[in-house]
């Protein structure tokens, strides 16, 4: 895989850098890491981080130390669909443990693992700010809320069907 943003992405990157004062381009690091992770396979491999460092004119270590600090940045490969199920207090009160167990059983994977077909990774998450709509998970850009076993079934069927088409 060539690690290079498209021209359109580079324009976006430059637009983001311009939001911060001159010489403070490092401020754009987290927003740009989001773009890089989305673009380069859903995780941040070292060459990807080095590329971001180069764009921002900062040292690679400055990128590594930030990427490893924030839980949304994946430091190893993940499945095509990352199922991040919240399990903190309010979600637990509404049955998130059962949802996590159900997904494990259904997909035959443990927490942090990916299905052999590379489709799904299960990642228990800490509070995602949807406590009133529990139990919930983050799937890509959006939240899936008020989860039930039936909803999990439907969701996984839909994602598998999408893959076939």
């Amino acid at each position, binding site marked *: 895989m060539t690690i290079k943003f498209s021209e359109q992405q580079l324009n976006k990157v430059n637009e983001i850098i311009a*939001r911060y*004062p001159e010489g*403070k381009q*490092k*401020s*754009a*690091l*987290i*927003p740009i*890491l*989001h773009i890089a992770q989305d673009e380069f396979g859903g995780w941040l491999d070292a060459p990807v981080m080095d590329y971001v460092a180069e764009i*921002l004119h*900062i040292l690679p270590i*400055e990128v590594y*130390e*930030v990427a490893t*600090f*924030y*839980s*949304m*940045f994946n430091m190893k490969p993940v499945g095509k669909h990352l199922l991040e199920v919240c*399990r*903190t*207090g*309010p979600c*637990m*009160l*509404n049955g998130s443990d059962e949802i996590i167990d159900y997904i494990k059983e259904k997909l035959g994977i443990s927490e942090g693992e990916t299905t052999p077909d590379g489709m799904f990774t299960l990642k228990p998450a*800490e*509070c*995602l*700010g*949807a*406590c*009133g*709509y*529990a139990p919930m998970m*983050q799937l*890509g*850009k*959006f*939240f899936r809320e008020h989860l039930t076993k039936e909803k999990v079934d439907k969701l996984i069927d839909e994602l598998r069907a999408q893959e076939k088409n």
Partner: protein
Amino acid sequence: MPQGFRLLTFDIKMGVKVLLDNDHIEGIRYYDTYRKHGGYRAAEKAFKMAPADIVEEVKKSGLRGRGGAGFPTGMKWSFLAKPEGVPRHLVCNADESEPGTFKDRYLMEFHPHLFIEGLLISSFALGSNTTYVYIRGEYAWIPDILEQAITEAKNNGWLGKNIQGTGFDCEIYVHRGAGAYICGEETALIESLEGKRGNPRMKPPFPAIQGVWMRPTVVNNVETIAAVVPIINMGGDEYAKIGMGKSTGTKLLSVCGNVNKPGVYEIDMTISVEEFIYSDEYCGGIPKGKRLKACIPGGSSVPIIPANLLLKTAKGETRMMNYESLSDGGFASGSMMGSGGFIVLDEDQCVVRHTMTLARFYNHESCGQCSPCREGTGWMYKILKNIEYGKGKMSDIDLLWDIQRRIEGNTICPLGDAAAWPVAAAIRHFRDEFEWHILNPDESQRRNFGLAHYADPIHIPASA
């Protein structure tokens, strides 16, 4: 009395709303509708005032920071240094990460123009030409909503250069975080905005003197910023008439856990906790007619209190939904308003398990800078896990108490306190439940402890 009938001891009344008063209007998310219903009138008014007078109105309003600490906003604004030739910034804290709290998400998602109008007025008052909204990374779809609203505002002359002919320039940028509770702490947020790890800074210097890029900075919560709009519209004195005592204005509560109607509610801080939980206007009671066991009224960091101390204070007075009343009795018998994340536990919930999940949360979220927090949060989680899974020892309870006491007050930022308080309060009020887990390791794996002396005091048994 019919079965399951509940004796209500409050009069139902409608509270004053100044933030979500237009919640029912379809399309209020969009500029034209917002404008038609009085939107940007406060900004028009503010532009005719001197910035110092806006700060004065906010001071008069008695508005207290809605993020959790409750510090008077007008006072915070007045601390902002104004050195010649150095830009200053307003940074909005939209990192909302305190478990139980999801009110800012609601405001940004459904009332983006109210929020932007608040940002605009506040930026004008503080002299911030470039204002940033630091939003938690997981709210990944909300920046699109905000950026669309920013574009609409700009197209209508409310942002950009020489706004409404005032000569004031202002740009608002949305900056996404990437999953770190600690970035809700204002100096960690500033570090993160600078593209670094979210490690809180030593204070002083305070952000008002040296904040982002070492420039004078004010960091305010989303709800605080939104409240500036009604304050300017009605005037600080009028706003201060809403509420009770030093709890002026309205507060957004995000309700979760075991209630019939979880969600976001605006209250005017004059209602009782009992009314809030049981009236249909708000939480609508506990599902399946179950009894109330405990509640964390202000986000996961504030002390959990049992039902009997939640509805009445230790002095036997009705506990009200406001800053003073919720903290009445201190940590011995009270709690805090905090961020307004209202977490309700019914009779079947396990306080040990709930506390364990919170300890795991704080352990996950500790930035690792200070040893008491870095090591202590993990240690507390391990002990709680042992107790929860039937492997606890009686001495563990005192050990937990000892660890939390050594974290509290011994860290750079308040995350240490936030991690210590839930454990301390759980042991303080529910020690018998911890002991039961330890003495009944097998049984505790099959069922929960249930209720004890702290049972819902107003419950009327079905057999009555």
